[in-house]
């Protein structure tokens, strides 16, 4: 086998390798080059974030507009302090509300933004003040059970009074 033929084939081989890695990065992993220039930061405080993770999407009307970049506990007020990086193309009014939602019944959790009516927009670094916490399934169930039990109690009270 000629040296130049081998060189050519190995060149093709390495090119295939690079092409595959590029394909995996761009097409499969959807690597969108996100520099600090194309995003701006907003924060929001929640009483309970449930299972929200870093890198969870931030959506508005179902469209992904950014990602959660940091989650930490504010030890003075004991609320969850969530930092988000939002796409510069999307601006939100100052009275925008943020809530933590779940995609599907058992899906991942994300931050949902609902636009308000204020003509002024949020500046980078601003805090979203109107927030509502994640729905925690256990709390939901126990609330439901409690109300059910109360209803049962009043029912049995009625029955008891009727028996008398």
């Amino acid at each position, binding site marked *: 086998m000629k040296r130049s033929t*081998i060189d050519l084939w190995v060149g093709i*081989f390495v090119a*295939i*390798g690079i092409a595959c890695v590029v394909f995996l990065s761009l*097409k*499969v992993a959807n690597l969108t080059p996100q520099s600090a220039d194309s995003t701006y930061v907003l924060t929001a405080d929640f009483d309970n974030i449930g299972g929200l993770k870093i*890198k969870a999407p931030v959506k508005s009307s179902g469209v992904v507009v950014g990602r959660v970049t940091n989650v930490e506990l504010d030890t003075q007020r004991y609320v969850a302090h969530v930092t988000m990086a939002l796409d510069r193309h999307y601006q939100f009014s100052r009275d925008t509300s943020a809530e933590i939602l779940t995609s599907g019944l058992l899906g991942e959790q994300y931050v949902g933004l609902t636009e308000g009516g204020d003509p002024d927009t949020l500046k980078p670094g601003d805090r979203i003040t109107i927030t509502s916490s994640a729905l925690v399934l256990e709390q939901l169930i126990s609330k439901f059970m409690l109300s059910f039990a109360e209803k049962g109690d009043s029912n049995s009270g009625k029955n008891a009074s009727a028996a008398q």
Partner: protein
Amino acid sequence: MLDFLISPLRKLGHTSINAIWRLGYASRFLISILMYSGQSLMRFSLVIREVYFAGVLSLIIIIVSGLFVGMVLGLQGYNTLARFGSSDALGALVALSLLRELGPVLAALLFASRSGSAMTAEIGLMKTTEQLDAMSVMAVNPVARVVAPRFWAGVISMPVLAALFNVMGIFGGYLVGVVMIGLDAGTYWSQMNNAVDLHFDVVNGLIKSLVFGIAVTLIAVFEGYDATPTAAGVSSATTRTVVTSALVILALDFVLTAFMF
């Protein structure tokens, strides 16, 4: 009566000592490969030649098996996902299972049996026919001239082959899921995009395949260099390469997975 007990124990002891001795010998061998690598990397044409034999000639088997593994994943995954009404997630399932596990592991297993065994047989045969002796008598270090270029060629080829296997597998899943079964092409790719993380899945998978490449090639060149210089010795060394590589790949995969994911 006591012999009945002692002789199997003695055999066990002998086997364990032997295994540990070989492990130590292999580590020393790796160190000497690394020591002499400078010389062979300076003459990179030697490595290129071996990349041709180890990597380029494995392309066909990697492409074909990648495609088929992806197609099987598509078929099986679809049947299972459809039962839970989430057949949309097929793209994510195919991509994640390939990138994290199947791609690196299967590509490494194929590489061990295609190129690893060839390396062992080649070096073993060079030893049997006194070519390695001839080299060292000519004041040329056989580790630098024969072993190190093959080692680096294997380390270079393995991630490339694994990446190619992944791409072919994803394409195979696409063929079955989208072209054959008729899922939406956009859903296939977007589900995949949402589920796959560049660093967590793609890069970790490539790191895995790099580690497998080092392990498989080291085993292959070591078994060849250490082979008993007879026809029977070379053939049993070749068998050992394939068997040991397979076990080491699976064991390393477990360890790496435990650390990474």
